[in-house]
């Protein structure tokens, strides 16, 4: 065995339009690896994980790097918009400050400058920091293929998106005016480490009762990121400390997560209970 310092060789593709990108994916079926910001793909290539003969960079597709707002449909962000550009965008800060604040706190300056929202979504890591935030905001993604577009909820894209398709746009509805936001995460080293687990919630309380709520978890498998059972428990109820504790317990029991080099799955489930509880408490207290 040997240790590699250099990247492996590959054929480099740099389409300038979404159509070109789709065409390339179609003509070289299964042989193309898509790269957005590069923070994950280049890292994995160095470790010889997931290598394919072609590397397709999306960096030259200007149509995918934008942030816009529409009164009817809300925020629309191109997949190649960097996390920092979302954090800095006056449009996002005005229309959905929750998203801007969340992006501002993800990772480190270099990873925010290089990392894109689309790349963060499509990496499918349990620890991808933007996914729980987007799920809690009720965000959707536009998936593009040779035949056209379709829009799916963020929490469903992992099962909807197929090889040869491109995640092109993210739509974030503006949160209802009185909706309350809560977010909490656990990392061994704040800022530097990806969150071991996290919880994001958007909750609407009318006359002391929860009218609707979204609770999303980070650090768990993609299918279990939306804590639907906890949402059902809270719906229509007064959000007391006791209810919050129960909802957090249920979220922890219902999700799937694996152990890693550092922590066991059991400990992570304990942590998940804590971050879910704290996120809900933050929201309700806010």
């Amino acid at each position, binding site marked *: 065995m040997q240790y590699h310092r250099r990247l492996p060789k*590959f*054929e480099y593709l740099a389409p300038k339009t979404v159509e070109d990108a789709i065409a390339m994916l179609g003509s070289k079926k299964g042989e193309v690896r898509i790269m957005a910001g590069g923070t994950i793909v280049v*890292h994995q290539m*160095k470790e010889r994980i997931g290598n394919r003969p072609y590397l397709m*960079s999306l960096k030259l597709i200007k149509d995918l790097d934008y942030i816009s707002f529409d009164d009817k449909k809300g925020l629309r962000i191109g997949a190649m918009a960097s996390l920092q550009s979302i954090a800095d965008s006056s449009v996002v800060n005005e229309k959905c400050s929750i998203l801007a604040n969340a992006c501002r706190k993800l990772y480190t*300056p270099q990873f925010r400058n290089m990392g894109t929202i689309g790349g963060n979504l499509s990496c499918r890591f349990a620890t991808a920091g933007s996914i729980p935030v987007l799920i809690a905001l009720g965000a959707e993604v536009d998936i593009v293929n040779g035949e056209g577009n379709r829009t799916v909820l963020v929490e469903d894209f992992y099962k909807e998106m197929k090889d040869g398709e491109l995640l092109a746009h993210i739509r974030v509805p503006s949160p209802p005016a009185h909706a309350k936001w809560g977010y909490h995460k656990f990392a061994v080293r704040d800022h530097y480490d990806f969150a071991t687990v996290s919880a994001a919630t958007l909750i609407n309380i009318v006359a002391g009762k929860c009218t609707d709520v979204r609770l999303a978890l980070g650090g768990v498998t993609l299918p279990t990121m939306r804590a639907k059972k906890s949402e059902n428990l809270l719906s229509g109820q007064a959000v007391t400390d006791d209810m919050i504790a129960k909802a957090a317990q249920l979220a922890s029991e219902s999700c799937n997560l694996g152990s890693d080099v550092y922590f066991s799955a059991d400990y992570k489930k304990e942590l998940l209970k804590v971050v879910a509880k704290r996120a809900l408490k933050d929201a309700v207290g806010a």
Partner: protein
Amino acid sequence: MKQEMKFIVNGEHHAVQVETHRTLLEVLRETLGLTGSKEMCNKGDCGGCSVIMDGKLVLSCLTLAIEAQAKEITTIEGLADGNVLHPIQQAFVDHGAIQCGYCSPGFIIAAKAIIDKTPNPTIDEIKEGISNHVCRCTGYVQIVEAIDAAAKNMGGSR
């Protein structure tokens, strides 16, 4: 597969042939001889390869060289004016913030990025700005002091 690349580094125009599987760090160090940016972990975990590209702090070890096409890059070698140190570099020297020096170029470039964006950073903003960086010698205390002193010394100028 080689491609031609034109970019600006420390104010100088360069046109080089690069293989597409070379990283920006490799081209800076090996093709242009700018060995100040360091290969410390080569995977984005330490900040030692940090450069400023089109005004943004990035990790050159995770950037394909070819994707720096037409961009403007500042490396550590671009800060001093001949042999006169940039105020940030001087502050690092004056405050004992450099020991083995291997991580220092990364920190100094990150400090420039912090001060360029926020001329009067708080200590928390300084710490956030260097949160991707690893130092094993200094324990970070004098590095933060140096960046704070440099920002105050530069008084809003860049």
